[in-house]
């Protein structure tokens, strides 16, 4: 506006990532697909560098730049750390799978990088405009990733389905943004908050706009009733891509949702709270009940992730600082469980290729006990049974809900977790109680073993030692959200 360069320091990691990704793109273009491995490794390195720069140079103080479009604070640092982690692991897991399926293209790690960049912008968005830009950068990369295995019908179908429905949701989102802007005259969250704080209550147009905005965002976190795409996309996409979908973008979209609602519409808590409560209950129930009848483990994980998003939304529904803190704890634990579970799915290989049915896990405890124990840890943790990390997530989420007076929500959540427990137990039953139907072929690679092992350790009772620092970090992050 005034011709001067804005303060670039708060966005330094994003700038490094953007430029680095371009450089790697050029590198890949000149070297061709043989450079897949190098580009992958360099991409992971680049993500690590950005994470370190973010923690050391940017830090947790609240800084606003680009005319209030971009904000960084402790909350952003926490969420972005998870995003970096999820993206790096997704690239790490993909190497052998993509090579074996003949789709080891250097574009894969680059698309992950660009999607990550979009997510970082989403997390830092302080304006409805930058929100949309970040979201679209992420979504477009994800559409391509879903259709990565373009010779396989399921994969292209997944990509197309994701794209069509995603475009629809983006449309709703944009329509909502335009309504909000039209009726309130503001795009920036802080300004929106003050302009909506009047005594006469928000204009009806803003409420309608907010509903559209929430619908669009609910699609991105795959909350019911905007979850239809999730099972098909999870099932059709190549497994490492699914692992990526289930982890980092969920974190980013949740962070975006939290910041938009808490910073942008604090005065309309009563309006959005009931919507969040509804989609949270609906997600928990659909996640619990529909997953009962799944036979494909990737579809099952899709419904499981819908349910878990429902639990995380309980924290947002509480609308309190404790609720946001719980949500962040939940997301961090969810990330380790999901990445671990998908890494384990990547080890389900027979001589004729990957298998994805739950029945294929039969007797895993007799053929590969460490893997069976690791999967059991993930399943018990996802089910939220004490002794494992998943329980802490549920504890803090429902603690916040009860504190906010949402006791019925907590009761429904717990009851649906009992229903959900059944299908997690079923996987354990198949692995431990059933007769073996033949061992899996080894050779899933060290990266998969490493991720499974690390995630299993993090979710095991060792989490008793780690939970205290995590709670501290989440409290620090939630405290920065302008309460």
């Amino acid at each position, binding site marked *: 506006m005034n011709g001067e360069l804005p303060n670039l320091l708060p966005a330094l990691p994003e700038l490094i990532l953007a430029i680095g990704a371009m450089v790697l793109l050029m590198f890949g273009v000149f070297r061709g697909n043989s450079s897949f491995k190098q580009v992958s490794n360099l991409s992971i390195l680049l993500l690590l560098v950005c994470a370190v720069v973010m923690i050391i140079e940017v830090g947790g103080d609240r800084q606003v730049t680009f005319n209030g479009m971009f904000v960084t604070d402790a909350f952003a640092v926490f969420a972005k750390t998870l995003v970096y982690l999820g993206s790096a692991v997704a690239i790490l897991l993909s190497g052998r799978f993509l090579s074996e399926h003949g789709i080891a293209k250097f574009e894969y790690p680059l698309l992950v990088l660009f999607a990550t960049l979009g997510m970082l912008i989403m997390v830092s968005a302080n304006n409805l405009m930058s929100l949309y830009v970040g979201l679209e950068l992420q979504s477009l990369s994800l559409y391509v990733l879903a259709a990565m295995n373009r010779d396989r019908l399921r994969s292209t179908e997944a990509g197309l389905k994701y794209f069509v429905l995603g475009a629809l949701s983006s449309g709703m989102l944009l329509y909502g943004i335009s309504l909000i802007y039209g009726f309130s005259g503001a795009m920036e969250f802080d300004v929106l908050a003050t302009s909506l704080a009047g005594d006469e209550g928000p204009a009806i147009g803003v409420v309608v706009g907010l509903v559209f905005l929430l619908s669009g965002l609910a699609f991105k976190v795959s909350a019911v009733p905007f979850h239809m795409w999730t099972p098909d996309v999870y099932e059709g996409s190549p497994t490492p891509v699914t692992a990526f979908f289930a982890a980092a973008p969920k974190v980013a979209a949740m962070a975006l949702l939290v910041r938009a609602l808490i910073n942008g519409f604090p005065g309309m808590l009563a309006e959005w709270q009931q919507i969040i409560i509804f989609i949270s209950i609906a997600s928990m129930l659909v996640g619990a009940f529909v997953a009962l009848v799944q036979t494909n483990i990737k579809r099952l994980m899709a419904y499981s992730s819908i349910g878990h998003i429902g639990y995380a939304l309980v924290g947002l529904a509480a609308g309190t600082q404790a609720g946001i803190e719980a949500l962040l704890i939940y997301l961090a634990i969810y990330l380790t469980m999901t990445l671990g579970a998908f890494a384990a799915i990547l080890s389900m290989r027979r001589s004729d290729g990957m298998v994805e049915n739950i029945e294929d896990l039969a007797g895993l405890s007799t053929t590969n006990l460490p893997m069976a124990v690791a999967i059991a840890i993930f399943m018990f943790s996802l089910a939220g*049974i*004490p002794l494992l990390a998943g329980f802490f997530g549920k504890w803090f989420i429902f603690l916040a809900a009860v504190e906010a007076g949402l*006791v019925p929500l907590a009761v429904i959540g717990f009851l649906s977790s*009992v229903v959900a427990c059944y299908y997690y137990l079923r996987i354990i039953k198949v692995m*431990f109680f059933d007769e073996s139907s033949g061992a899996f072929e080894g050779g899933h690679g060290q990266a998969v073993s490493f991720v499974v092992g690390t995630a299993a350790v993090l979710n095991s009772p060792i989490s008793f030692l780690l939970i*205290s620092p995590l709670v501290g970090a989440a409290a620090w992050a939630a405290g920065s959200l302008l309460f």
Partner: protein
Amino acid sequence: MFFLENNLLSLMMIMPVIGAAILLIIRHKDQEIEKRNIRQVSLFITFVTFLMSLVLWAGFDNGTAEFQFVEQHSWIGEDISYYIGVDGISMLFVVLTAFLMPIVILASWDSVQDRVREYMIAFLILETLMIGVFTALDIFLFYIFFEGGLIPMYLLIGVWGGMNRIYASFKFFLYTLLGSVLMLVAVLYMYLQSGTTEIPLLMNYNFDVDVQNWLWLAFFASFAVKMPMWPVHTWLPDAHVQAPTGGSVILAGVLLKMGGYGFLRFSLPMLPEATIEFSWLVFALSIIAIIYTSLVALVQEDIKKLIAYSSVAHMGFVTIGIFLLNENGVEGAIFTMLSHGVVSGALFLCVGVIYDRLHTREIGRYGGLAINMKIYAVLFVLFSMASVGLPGTSGFVGEFLVLNGSFAYNSWIAFLAATGVVLGAAYMLYLVRRLIFGDLDKDDVKAMPDLSLREKLVFAPLVIVVLWMGIYPNSFLEPMHASVNALLETHFSTDTSHAAADIIVSPAGR
């Protein structure tokens, strides 16, 4: 010794975990030697833990109701801490747990041949969790141990269980979980209301009377399933029948006691008004349980199922005793739990002995065991009598105290509960008649050898304890007095005066 004094409980909990870690690294090229080593290490570890529990008992001060052997370290945030300790109510349960574990390991010596390492690890982890339940003084910690125990037990039933093990393991897990999540909501609420998760502080916090009823019902949902009380007892016969012998012993001996312990630790002291309000409900359900399950036990054809139903009936006595809210009732309830832990454990082991020989639990397939298995017959009759409540055995003292306490409270309750004693004698004697006496006319039963040295070794401590508890119950009652008195006087002093007045001399000879 100083170190031991201060960390005894933690050491008892960590010992089995260390044992499990050792089991992981035991390797030998000869499978048989490897299995033998695994069994010996497990036995050694559980035996050491048992010795530590004896140190705990010896060092326990009977004179105070305060928590002893207390350890506290901050854990999550400012409120939740690693806080453990024992008082007169919980101490003997810890000893009971540690006492049963080596017996269970010894009893599984030959009968478990498949995946021995995993079996022993599951049991050792379970021991840690069970001790944790009885010692936790932080409600969050308690919940973790209480629920966490489901995981090893689920695997034990599912992997090493009988024909219908998958159904039984799922039913066990989901039933218990469903009850517990409701308790979790109550725990969250209590934490937010009082601002603390420490059980001693919560015991003295006065919750709103209206809220108490809801909280009480939530706790009740969990403990009633765990006890189990009629009508949510149906998971128990399935789980018992399908579980391996060791699993049944621990299930009946320790896990069922968690419900009763929960009532004593949470419902009574934290929610006293609601406890009085709902005691009619507990009495009604308990009396139905006693009479109904005793009748059901009469017609069982499966030995394990019969004993499982008798467990439900005995637990009916326990719940009646607890909610009488007088000293005899509560002490009788605790004593019945301890006695039932030993006796029903012993009975399941007895079933295990003949099951290992004939591989059936059907009563009709046996008969006349007194002729060819003389020692076994003596033991079986002894434990059956202890289950019936014959004077001189452990079963008598607890039931007598509970009935005595209930006479002081309401003679109708005492009358109806006493019919349970008669029915109990009926089904146990009927079982003994069919199993031990009668003609020895089946060839495969004739071929069954009497107890081996290992089996005698398993039963010897159980016989001693059953007789000891029956002949000199004071060793077990004395540690309880101070804590039970404090519990009743602090929270129910006005309500129990009329009941306690006319029972000055208790049958224990005090």
